[in-house]
């Protein structure tokens, strides 16, 4: 099991750790609800150093990523960040990731911790245009600063910030290059700061100096999960895996089926989706968690892929994978043999 470079400092600051994606990560500090609310109304700081970072370089790098991933990168400006899926030849999902464009010949890729080895293997196997691939995951650490006060807090350290959501800039910390991107996994405004491992504890400590001014909360994976769930952001291994057809998630905006050939295109063109992702509001008391059966009337139509109590909304929400043509007018979720009434509702559940 790996530890991030922030492990010792976060343990000292009261983090409670769990295993996640091959790393010991803090699940919470003072409490998930408090951390969640801090991110919705103020600012929270997360260690997300477990995420993987790859570099793809070469004169054909744009063609390369257009072939590797489902989104279209051909008109992407430098300094932009774009979400995409990466499929296998069956149209199943290898991972979902962010692509950072430095220039036409240089892109950073940010992938899920639990998929780093698999992704590296998949990309190396499918490289077609001679690009150079480098896995930087062990050298780079990342801190996420999230919430309506994130810009104010991050600005205290770095001054100039990326202005648009899903853009990034190179900045300096103690004379070293860092990447500051306006991205996150919480549904709030926020920033992710990528730095060499040696700098990351110092960056955290700098941010913590402004604790009193911004009432900053250290936040863990527990609130990261409730925050992303309210925002209906899918999580690899829950809403999707290698067997999930990419077109079954309602993420078609990130699948440019009309572009030139890419890994998975043939399968996604020929296969019809059997399932779809829906959002559920649980109207009875209780939490519908991953694996719970979803019924319409008495007919089983699918299962819950993630669910939680929504601290912001005050009721439980869930995402579910159900038959693509299923009727969802009379939904129940089976929670330990107890049917909880639910309603299919639009996603995201919460929007800032």
């Amino acid at each position: 099991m790996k530890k991030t470079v922030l492990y010792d400092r976060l343990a000292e600051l009261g983090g409670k750790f769990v295993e996640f994606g091959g790393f010991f990560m803090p699940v919470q500090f003072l409490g998930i609800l408090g951390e969640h609310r801090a991110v919705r109304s103020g600012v929270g700081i997360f260690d997300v150093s477990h995420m993987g970072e790859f570099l793809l370089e070469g004169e054909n790098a744009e063609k390369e990523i257009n072939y590797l991933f489902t989104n279209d990168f051909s008109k992407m400006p430098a300094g932009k960040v774009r979400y995409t899926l990466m499929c296998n030849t069956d149209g199943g999902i290898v991972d979902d990731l962010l692509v950072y464009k430095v220039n036409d010949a240089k892109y950073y890729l940010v992938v899920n911790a639990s998929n780093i080895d698999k992704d590296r293997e998949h990309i190396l196997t499918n490289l077609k245009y001679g690009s150079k691939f480098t896995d930087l995951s062990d050298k780079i650490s990342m801190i996420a600063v999230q919430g309506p006060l994130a810009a104010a807090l991050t600005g205290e350290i770095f001054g100039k910030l990326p202005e648009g959501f899903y853009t990034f800039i190179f900045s300096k910390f103690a004379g070293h290059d860092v990447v500051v991107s306006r991205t996150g996994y919480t549904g709030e405004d926020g920033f992710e700061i990528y730095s060499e491992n040696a700098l990351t504890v110092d960056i955290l400590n700098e941010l913590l100096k402004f604790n009193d001014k911004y009432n900053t909360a250290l936040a863990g994976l527990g609130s990261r999960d409730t925050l992303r769930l309210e925002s209906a952001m899918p999580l690899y291994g829950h809403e999707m895996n290698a067997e999930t057809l990419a077109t079954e998630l309602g993420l078609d905006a990130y699948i440019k089926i009309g572009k030139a050939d890419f890994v998975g295109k043939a399968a996604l063109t020929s296969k019809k989706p059997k399932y779809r992702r829906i959002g559920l509001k649980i109207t009875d008391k209780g939490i519908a968690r991953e694996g719970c059966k979803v019924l319409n009337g008495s007919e089983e139509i699918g299962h819950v892929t993630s669910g939680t109590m929504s601290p912001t909304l005050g009721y439980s929400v869930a995402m579910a994978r159900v038959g693509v043509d299923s009727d969802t007018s009379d939904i129940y979720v089976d929670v330990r043999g107890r049917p909880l009434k639910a309603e299919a509702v639009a996603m995201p559940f919460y929007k800032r």
Partner: protein
Amino acid sequence: MAKELKFSASHEWAELDGKTAVIGVTDYAAELMGDIVFVELPAVGSRIKAGATFANIESVKAVSEVFSPVTGIVTAVNLSLNDSPELINRDAFAAYLIKADVEALEDGLMTESEYNKLKH
């Protein structure tokens, strides 16, 4: 007859008063569970069995089963937990889950000092 406070190894408490008991979870259990958001209680009149699940507590993190320290019949449930499950986090000894008529106790229930040694 004096009331007697007993603890189970699975972190429940039972305040025994003759043939009746008030039952809840310990503050230690509540801290391990984190922020509690729902409590699923048995129906009044239902049978509970020593060592068997009689309630489920949902925290933001996960669901936890609560095991009964006694065999008997549920005579009351703490309805205030329906709207304010966080009462357990606030004071787990004040926020009882159920009251029961007791037929038998679970084997191996502990005194408070024995329990305090166990949890550390």
